[in-house]
């Protein structure tokens, strides 16, 4: 099995917890270069579990998983996982910035320690990323001094510092005050325009309509449908998808 064009290949991926509950149930999907895939679904449907398997934060039981041409085993080969993590960025719901490091140190730690880049060069790169995110003036502050939206933009800058080929977003705006959501979504729109491949777990319908190339809808660990956003939001193929959309769009 080789899928040279895709950066994510998933075939028949399954994972169950000890109680027999299926977190992931026979999932197959692919993501191409530069594609933006938005993952939607009710809570507990396995969205987060799915994208966390993409950088090895979550293991799986059976199936085939290949990220950026690197095969991941169910048991998780440590060497392959680290190789993937160096090339895949992740942004979390709770930001997870390192509170004891300055904004600049948060961003430069991995480039210096993992990629062994020169400190000066890593700092210059970090400052340009912060400038793109519109938060250059915060470089020497600490995370607790920033608002949620600013912290999340720092987290995005941190995930970009290793010059990744793929970004994973796990509900990036769910923990934000409503008036702070757009500044983060704007930064993500910019990235999509620049051709960054992204998998985004989110409930932001506007963002999905505008930015997604495809929308994946999950329920109870299964893929219900994968459609283009205009089809999904106006005329979803599956009854379960339509019911979900009716509930979130009033």
């Amino acid at each position, binding site marked *: 099995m080789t899928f040279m064009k895709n950066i994510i290949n998933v075939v028949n991926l399954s994972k169950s917890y000890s109680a027999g509950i299926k977190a992931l149930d026979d999932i197959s999907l692919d993501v191409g270069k530069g594609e933006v895939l938005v993952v939607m679904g009710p809570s507990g449907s396995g969205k987060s579990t799915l994208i966390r398997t993409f950088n090895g934060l979550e293991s799986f039981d059976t199936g085939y998983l290949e990220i950026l041409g690197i095969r991941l085993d169910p048991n998780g080969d440590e060497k392959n996982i*680290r190789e993937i*993590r*160096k090339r895949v960025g992740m942004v979390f719901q709770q930001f997870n910035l390192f509170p*004891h490091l300055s904004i600049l140190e948060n961003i430069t*730690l991995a480039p210096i320690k*993992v990629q062994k880049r020169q400190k000066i060069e890593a700092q210059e790169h970090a400052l340009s990323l912060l400038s793109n995110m519109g938060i250059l003036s915060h470089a020497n502050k600490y*995370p607790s001094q920033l608002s949620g939206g600013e912290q999340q933009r720092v987290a995005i800058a941190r995930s970009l510092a*290793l010059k990744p080929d793929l970004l994973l977003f796990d509900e990036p705006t769910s923990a934000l005050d409503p008036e702070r959501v757009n500044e983060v979504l704007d930064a993500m729109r910019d990235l999509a325009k620049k051709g960054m491949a992204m998998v985004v777990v989110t409930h932001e319908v506007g963002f999905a309509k505008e930015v997604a190339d495809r929308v994946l809808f999950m329920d109870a660990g299964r893929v219900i449908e994968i459609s283009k956003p205009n089809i999904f939001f106006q005329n979803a193929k599956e009854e379960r998808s339509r019911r979900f959309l009716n509930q979130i769009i009033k």
Partner: protein
Amino acid sequence: MRISKGIFVQITLAISLFLLIFILFNNLYVNLINKQIGFTFNWLLRPAGFALSESSLNYSPSNSYAWALFVGWINSLKIILSSLIFSTLLGIIVGLFSKSKNKLLRKFSSIYVGLIRQIPLLVQLMFWYFVVFLGFNNSNNDHYSHFFSVSNKGINILNLNLTTEFSALLFGLSVFTGAYIAEVIRGGINSVPSGQWEAFKSVGLSEIQGVFYIIIPQSLPAIIPGLTSQYLNLAKNSTLAIAVGYADIYAISDTVINQTGRAIEGFLILLLSFLFLNLIITYAMEFLNRFVIANQNRRIR
């Protein structure tokens, strides 16, 4: 008006306290005089007359009691400081084992901590002395012996010669305290949110790099208070040296009190010497704590 009332209460309290202490000491002093024992430290300058099994300083039986006690205090300091270093290293290693992905290391950590905490320290010291160190044979004939050797005469590392008593005490105290420190370290690491582990993994840091750069710095505020308690316990537990015949301050005071009959003065010296020692440990750790807290406050507006 309220302020002057407060001060009045404080002054009354202070005077009563001093009065109470004065009465107690006066009572003691008068009784000692009446029984013709007296309260004096003159005897400190008389020759001790007993030999010491171990001394880092020049000492002979013709030296004074004061000098013998000082040598004992230095011996205590020696065993406390070296056990402190070894137990800390051991505690950090075992504490990190408990968070390892390796099942065998986790198991080792929990068995070690479980076992050590169930057995009285005195029994453990006896074990290290009689079973382990006195159990070695006397032969030092193998060709490594001039670099490193262990025998029933103790441990030899190059020119450093550790007596059997010191070695047994060092192992006993370090292994015992190490188990408690491992738990303090584990608790500290658990205080760091799991999102921090996920974040450092996601940016490609290795487990060791992540623990060193991300987890340990954030767990220090939770670790230091517990560590201070363990260090103070270690210092106090070192008085069990008398059980394996190591000449620490307590063992020497015991002999001195027996010979001179000066129990009250002897215990006063013992109390003050431990007070002094533990205050040093407390202030050193307090300094470390302030440094860590100050570093944290810098991050919050």
